[in-house]
């Protein structure tokens, strides 16, 4: 009991002295409380600002403010412009916000995540000097002029979505964001539903399999699948995916010209790969067509015409590939003839 009494006394003493010493603290803590309230109102923890709240929280309090703001500049009318990725970035931003709040047990009052909408608060946009989107800005506690003292997040910092945003925040504010809690792709209910559906469906599938009537029993599917895998691989598509090669390049000397074929064997362009893959595949397909389909055709002239077309196309394809290969790699393939022949 004695302990608690002294305790109480101490606490009240400290509070009293605090009241006496810092009068301004009250207004600050009020602001923080307001912010916390606003934060808890929104679902993701992103506070929606407008011109009034910007002046309340950012312009009117004296620096240093007890908190930093990270502000996402949003514009609803630009949401349908897919190249800006505003919607995705806004979602990622919300993700960082909610992760930050959960990781810091919602007790942290140092950093608040906010967003501003262009239509509602144009003057704030002017205040920050924002004239292009996407735009994310960190307003530190000491920033006096919102335009000059706050830091803009680089394009590179939000290119890798939430993780890189978190890195930016961590490096600038010395606060830890912690791991990003992404919502699972499927919620638990959906998972249960899918599992149930699968369970119900499985006897039917099993029945079909035993009856031998599925798509998998159709050799044509397998055939086209196998040929497609072949085409896909020999065209070097895996190379293009792994290296993220473009389909074509723009000529450096002449911007109107497009480069489809790249000289040098270590690299290839997308269109180039598919073109050669097609040439590789077409010859075999024509050969199979001639040996397995054409023999059953009754009409003699049709046979003849089809064969000549097949021969011509195959010849052209092989010649083209040999030419392209020589051009690309520069290997001088030559025969080893007896020296007396020369």
């Amino acid at each position, binding site marked *: 009991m004695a302990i608690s009494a002294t305790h109480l006394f101490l606490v009240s003493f400290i509070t009293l002295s605090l009241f006496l010493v810092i009068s301004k603290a009250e207004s600050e803590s009020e602001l923080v409380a307001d912010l916390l309230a606003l934060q808890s109102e929104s679902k993701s923890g992103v506070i929606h600002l407008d011109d009034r709240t910007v002046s309340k929280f950012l312009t009117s309090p004296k620096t240093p403010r007890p908190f930093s703001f990270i502000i996402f500049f949003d514009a609803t009318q630009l949401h349908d412009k897919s190249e800006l990725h505003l919607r995705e970035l806004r979602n990622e931003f919300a993700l960082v916000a909610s992760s930050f709040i959960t990781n810091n047990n919602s007790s942290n009052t140092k950093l608040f995540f906010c967003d501003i909408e262009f239509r509602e608060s144009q003057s704030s946009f002017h205040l920050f000097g924002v004239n292009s989107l996407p735009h994310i800005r960190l307003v530190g506690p000491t920033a006096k002029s919102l335009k000059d003292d706050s830091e803009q997040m680089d394009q590179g910092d939000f290119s890798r979505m939430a993780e890189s945003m978190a890195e930016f925040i961590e490096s600038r504010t010395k606060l830890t964001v912690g791991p990003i809690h992404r919502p699972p792709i499927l919620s638990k209910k959906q998972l249960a539903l899918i599992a149930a559906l699968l369970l119900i469906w499985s006897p039917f599938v099993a029945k079909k399999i035993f009856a031998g009537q599925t798509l998998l029993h159709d050799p044509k599917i397998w*055939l086209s699948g*196998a040929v497609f895998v072949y085409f896909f691989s020999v065209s070097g598509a895996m190379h293009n995916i792994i290296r993220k090669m473009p389909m074509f390049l723009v000529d450096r000397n002449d911007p109107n010209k497009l480069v489809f074929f790249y000289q040098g064997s270590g690299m290839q362009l997308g269109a180039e790969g598919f073109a050669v893959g097609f040439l590789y595949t077409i010859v075999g397909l024509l050969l199979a067509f001639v*040996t397995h389909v054409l023999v059953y055709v009754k009409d003699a002239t049709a046979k003849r015409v089809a064969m000549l077309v097949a021969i011509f196309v195959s010849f052209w394809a092989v010649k083209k590939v040999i030419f392209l290969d020589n051009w690309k790699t520069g290997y001088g393939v030559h025969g080893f003839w007896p020296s007396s022949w020369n």
Partner: protein
Amino acid sequence: MAAPEASSAAVPTLMTNNTLRNAFGGVLSFFILLLIGVLAFSIRLFSVIKYESVIHEFDPYFNYRVTQFLTKNGIYEFWNWFDDRTWYPLGRVIGGTVYPGLTLTAGTIWWLLNSLNIPLSVETVCVFTAPIFSAFASWATYLLTKEVKGAGAGLTAAVLLAMVPSYISRSVAGSYDNEAVAIFALIFTFYLYIKTLNTGSLFYATLNSIAYFYMVCSWGGYTFIINLIPMHVLLCIVTGRYSSRLYIAYAPLVVLGTLLAALVPVVGFNAVMTSEHFASFLVFIIIHVVALVYYIKGILSPKMFKVAVTLVISAGLAVCCAVIAVLIALVASSPTKGWSGRSLSLLDPTYASKYIPIIASVSEHQPPTWPSYFMDINVLAFLVPAGIIACFLPLSDASSFVVLYIATSVYFSGVMVRLMLVLAPAACITSGIALSQAFDVFTRSIKFQLPGLSSNTEVDAGETSSATKEAQNDAVKTEKAEETSKDRPSRKSKKKEREHVEKPSTKTKAEKKRLLALPLEASVISLLLLVFLGAFYVVHCVWAAAEAYSAPSIVLTSHSHDGLHVFDDFREAYAWLRHNTDVDDKVASWWDYGYQTTAMANRTVIVDNNTWNNTHIATVGTAMSSPEKAAWEIFHSLDVKYILVVFGGLVGYPSDDINKFLWMVRIGGGVFPHIKEPDYLRDGQYRIDSQATPTMLNCLMYKLSYYRFVETDGKGFDRVRRTEIGKKYFKLTHFEEVFTTHHWMVRIYKLKPQKNRIRGKTKKSKSKTSSTSSSKRSGTRKKNPWH
């Protein structure tokens, strides 16, 4: 299938005539196979003819050394071999960390030859192991393709494989590496699997497990087999092709094969513990469930079966679910989900580039572009689709396996250029099938339309052409096929019987087919073009074998206007080490030359090509990047007596240590942060001329490479970097040059002994401080303090 058509051609002939023809065809195929073997062997001898009978590159030297040890000390010693000549002072357990297949094979060949009183050296045996096994591989290809589509296709596939460039690149004479025997083992295992699948014989199933064991012994690529075969089994089950033959082909392989694989020390319990093998166990369970279903279906009446099927399915599903759950739990409990990085990068191709720079940086692990395919399988790339389609007409168990093999291997080769080697046999098999069938159709068309030949084709003299011979072999095949198809239905499900009922109708169709030939002149043109295509393939393969893949990289040659120059500096240097240094001296060099130094000079090295300890490599890298004194201390602490550097500046050999030096800096800096890459770069550029940074000009690698270099031409012009070197006149304080080869390609330095301690002030100080203080003095006195 080609078989019924051929039988129709054989119908008019008499029975005696037929057997004679079959015998003739058999003998002819035998000799053709013999010639294919000779071709496969001899096309790989370019390296011996152009250079000499010598082991190539780096890894083969290690294998050669292991083989030497095996032949000298016997198998038990080899099994327990702890090698103290490498990774000094750590050493390496050789017996437990190598795939012993290649070594044991070459050792056995050597032992056999010696017991027959044919005294070949171990090196000769090692040099020629790869060409011999290429011949075996082409024979195995013949067997495999014959099982799938008949002898004609088999011979074509064998001759294609005998000279496919992708395989030549790994199996020229002297390229004594695991892949050389592993490709044979791979094809042979597949052949035995198909053979078991076609015959349902337990004898072949057992052989199959043993072949699989040989493959596991030889190469880490065995995981391809143990995943491909289960995939095929699963495919057969899913598409309703289950049969007791499938069970016999698969179940013994999993049980026996896994037990045998676990016997290989380097695999050991991995055979049951890693995810690469889990697919086979899962399919093993599934096939048992399916077998049970088929069994119950057989003993019950259809009505009873319907009742039973619900019961069995639910029970089976429950068991499956439980097992899958256990497997998933097992997999999830291991940190990499049980998959090794390389396997993961096959499944998710972007994995390696994202997470494992070591794997991504190796040039063998890059994804190939389209010219790689043209270089490595050449015109086969055109023929494969036709072969795939041929495999579907009609689809059998064996041909579906070939389709699966080509589809998976072509995908994997698209991810890693190294796996082109696995694609090559599949491409040869499918192209062989395509070519053989095309020849079949075209020659048949010509034969039935040539006016003079139509009456009596069979006895014609021109019949020895390969295409007709194929037809004969196909006739042999037909009889066999019909025999088997007669006794199969008793064991097979009803679905198969339905197929059998359809057979006579296809036979009558085949009779008609004789009339369904292609136009004469178009067939002749096509035939000629196909022959030209084949000729182009031969020219390309010979060129690839002779020019692209034969350089041993231990002996170098260059052509210039005044003739051929041979650079044999590496062996000169290793021989010097062998004859002029003490047997227990330690030699430090960059890891590339570790295997060669231990094998050819028989001296202990610090690091070698088996890069298992990054810290150790980083230590050597740090020493090479440090100034002389610091480097001396590092090397001294490792008991190193000699340093070997490779220098190409005089003759223009581009893969020398100066060009590899940035990797030494990077790897060294990765462990010892005081080594920083930017210190060696001037504005991000790597240079060794007068603009180079002082750190670069004072590091050990620079000094050892360019010491006395200015004496050669008076200017110090580096022919690889095409510039004059930055610091021309300098002396070495802690190292002395002991040997430089003829073309300056290898330079060997000795660490100067520690200074004598009885001298003035340093009398009482300990060894460590004496070395530092003495080097201080060496700075002040300018003159060489050691003498």
